[in-house]
């Protein structure tokens, strides 16, 4: 039951293409790849994947030390993305205080970089005399969320959901529900993550990381492609500013899109294997929440990380739910898998595609896999009116999430 309509009035991005939603979109439309060779990965025994998509061009010094001292990289990304979203929304500073604005921002894991630095000193001599007071603040699970609230002076709810690759989509969905139920007037929602070799190694060990393109990083990942060989780990932050439609209209905000529906569910049969039937249930619940049917969806922005099994299962779920006609693309070919940031970053891109009536094709999708090609995979830039779009994110641990956006047409 939705009580209030929910508008998106600001977006902010820190991605492998740099700081800002503009550079993100310009890079996606250009068909750029953020994947690079990471020399550090080459030097680690047992890691076969030597590529990642890393954030470029961030100057942490723009954040005052008072706030920066409790931040690892992921919090810096989240704060920069939130600042951009607030600027776009044109909110005056008094809107941030007073408790009407909340935060729902999560990450997959805490800062492994910070933990590593701590344990290097601690394990060497079992000595904590050099431990700085702010280390714990960098590794608390809600580090991104509270750092945003502290830096920006936000006094409402601070929620930090965590569900690996579903984190960002879940965070936006939860923010949507909080506004719909009148619990907050504004919500900054999304996710952030920072790269560490542990992420790549974790996917590599379960044979889900890309290992065959170490000499041609721009050719991987390859969602839905016959020659795909796994995930490319990435980092960044994607943030959406949500507010009630009523408030947005009253204050004359530019409404970028409407969040029309959301669902999240779990597949408790296996912690790693995806399930088409469970994904299908999730997408159907999102449609039901939006009060629309599958024929209403004009575009699907897939999770599709380029794992062998994940892409097949998602294709099957989409085929069963939506049939063969609705266009489908994944942005992982450009961005890699930005983990907790992926939901937000890919929603930002989807909103832009809705505005421009243009679908960005999946990068590196040269030869669609026989087991994926029954759905309508977008292979080149396609002009198409998008009234409703569906965004999927599926996570290790069996957590699925689907969110539906509606184009705002002054209605």
């Amino acid at each position, binding site marked *: 039951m939705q009580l209030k309509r929910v508008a998106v009035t600001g977006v902010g991005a820190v991605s492998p293409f740099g700081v800002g939603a503009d550079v993100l979109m310009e890079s996606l439309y250009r068909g750029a790849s953020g994947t690079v060779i990471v020399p550090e990965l080459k030097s680690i025994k047992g890691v076969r994947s030597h590529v990642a998509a890393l954030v470029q061009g961030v100057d942490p010094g723009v954040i005052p*030390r*008072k706030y920066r001292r409790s931040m690892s990289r992921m919090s810096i990304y989240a704060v920069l993305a939130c600042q951009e979203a607030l600027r776009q929304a044109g909110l005056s500073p008094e809107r941030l205080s007073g408790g009407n604005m909340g935060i729902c921002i999560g990450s997959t894991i805490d800062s492994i970089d910070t933990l590593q630095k701590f344990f290097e000193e601690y394990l060497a001599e079992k000595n904590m*005399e*050099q431990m*700085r*007071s*702010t280390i714990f603040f960098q590794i608390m699970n809600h580090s991104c969320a509270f750092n945003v609230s502290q830096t920006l002076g936000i006094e409402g709810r601070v929620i930090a959901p965590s569900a690996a690759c579903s984190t960002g989509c879940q965070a936006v969905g939860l923010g949507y529900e909080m506004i719909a139920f009148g619990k907050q007037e504004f919500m900054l929602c999304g996710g952030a993550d920072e790269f560490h070799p542990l992420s790549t190694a974790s996917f590599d060990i379960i044979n889900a990381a890309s290992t065959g393109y170490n000499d041609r990083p721009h050719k991987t990942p390859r969602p839905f492609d016959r020659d795909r060989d796994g995930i490319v780990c990435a980092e960044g932050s994607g943030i959406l500013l949500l507010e009630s439609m009523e408030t947005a209209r009253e204050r004359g905000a530019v409404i970028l899109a409407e969040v029309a529906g959301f669902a999240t569910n779990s597949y408790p049969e296996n912690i790693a294997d995806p399930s088409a039937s469970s994904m299908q249930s999730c997408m159907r619940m999102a449609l039901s929440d939006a009060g629309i049917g599958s024929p209403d969806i004009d575009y699907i922005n897939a999770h599709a990380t380029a794992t062998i099994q994940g892409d097949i299962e998602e294709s099957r779920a989409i085929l069963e739910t939506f049939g063969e006609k609705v266009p489908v693309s994944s942005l992982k070919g450009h961005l890699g898998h930005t983990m907790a940031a992926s939901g937000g970053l890919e929603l930002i891109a989807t909103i832009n595609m809705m505005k421009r009536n243009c679908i960005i094709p999946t990068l590196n999708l040269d030869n669609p896999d026989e087991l994926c090609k029954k759905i309508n995979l977008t292979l080149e830039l396609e002009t198409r009116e998008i009234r409703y779009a569906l965004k999927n994110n599926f996570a290790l641990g069996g957590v699925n999430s689907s969110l539906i956006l509606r184009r705002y047409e002054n209605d």
Partner: protein
Amino acid sequence: MTNEEIIRIINDSLIKEFELDSKKMVPEAVLYDDLELDSLDRVDMVIVLENAFKFKIREEKEIRDIRTLGDIHSFVINKIREIERVS
């Protein structure tokens, strides 16, 4: 080590750790109000000074009474002179 050398090491260490403006490093500068160093910074300040002078001061009660940069200068100078006397 002269008092001037000790003061220079203290100021340089604090400037580097806390990104302070060197123009504000006057003895009468109040740590909380003028240098904007809060309770967490004071904890880290002890580590910075311990590293700079290779002594242990964490358990010293006088640290709690430090208000100004000049108080830090005096505390460290006294501590170093005390160590010199003992040795």
